[in-house]
């Protein structure tokens, strides 16, 4: 992992790791020139997703790095959260911000989706979950 690749990986197993992941996210977002509001949204989305990992899967990892859109006209940040936890049965329901067993997963996932520009989730019961979120720099 070289410096100029700007890629960070954080192992997530406790609430201290959540704070560490948030810090890394904020750092890169700031360096890339996101404004304070977008920095806060990105950091909060990372917080929601990594907390889900701690709460439901116990452990997992998050990678944070620079991204470019397929058409190449937008730059941004991409965050990938991976765990091998119990997975999600009804993704649609959870994304609506609806019920979950602990009462927090709903807001966490749908919240992260609201805060970012792109959100993709792959999950199978018993096999774990991969969530990819992206935010683009605003044209100024």
């Amino acid at each position: 992992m070289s410096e100029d690749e700007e890629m960070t990986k954080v192992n997530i197993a406790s609430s201290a790791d959540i704070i560490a992941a948030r810090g890394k996210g904020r750092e890169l977002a700031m360096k890339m020139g996101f404004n304070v509001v977008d920095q806060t949204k990105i950091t909060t989305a990372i917080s929601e997703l990594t907390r889900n990992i701690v709460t439901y899967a116990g452990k997992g990892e998050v990678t944070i790095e620079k991204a470019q859109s397929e058409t190449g006209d937008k730059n941004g940040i991409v965050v990938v959260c991976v765990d091998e936890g119990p997975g999600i049965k009804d993704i649609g329901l959870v994304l609506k911000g609806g019920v979950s067993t602990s009462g927090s997963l709903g807001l966490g996932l749908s919240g992260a989706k609201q805060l970012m520009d792109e959100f993709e989730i792959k999950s199978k019961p018993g096999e774990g979950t991969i969530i990819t979120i992206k935010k683009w720099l605003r044209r100024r």
Partner: protein
Amino acid sequence: MDIPILKIEDFLVVTIQSELSDDEISKLQEDILLRIKDVGATGLIIDITALDIVDSFMGRTLSNVAATAELLGAKTVVVGIRPAVAVTLVELGIRVKWNVNTALNLERGRKLLKQLIGAEQRGGVS
């Protein structure tokens, strides 16, 4: 890390100075409620000016503290939410369940607490 809980008149003032881990949050929650009971506080101000992020977990925690404090006879006001944090909390969709009193800063928070307590007392007399 111990977070100081100051007593000013009948109010308690808690200033959160850095990001807290879950353990620190639950300990703080406990400490606050014990102190309210100890000193018979009628108001609680939580100052989060130093926080540059409030996620749904922290948001829920603040809301729980306020609800529990209310049961112990104290009104709660959260002060110092930053603009970027406010925008983020609203996007998160937390408003649906969030019934926490808020004010711009400490001074406004005290003013609001006095209003809230005054209104309750007037309501109680009549």
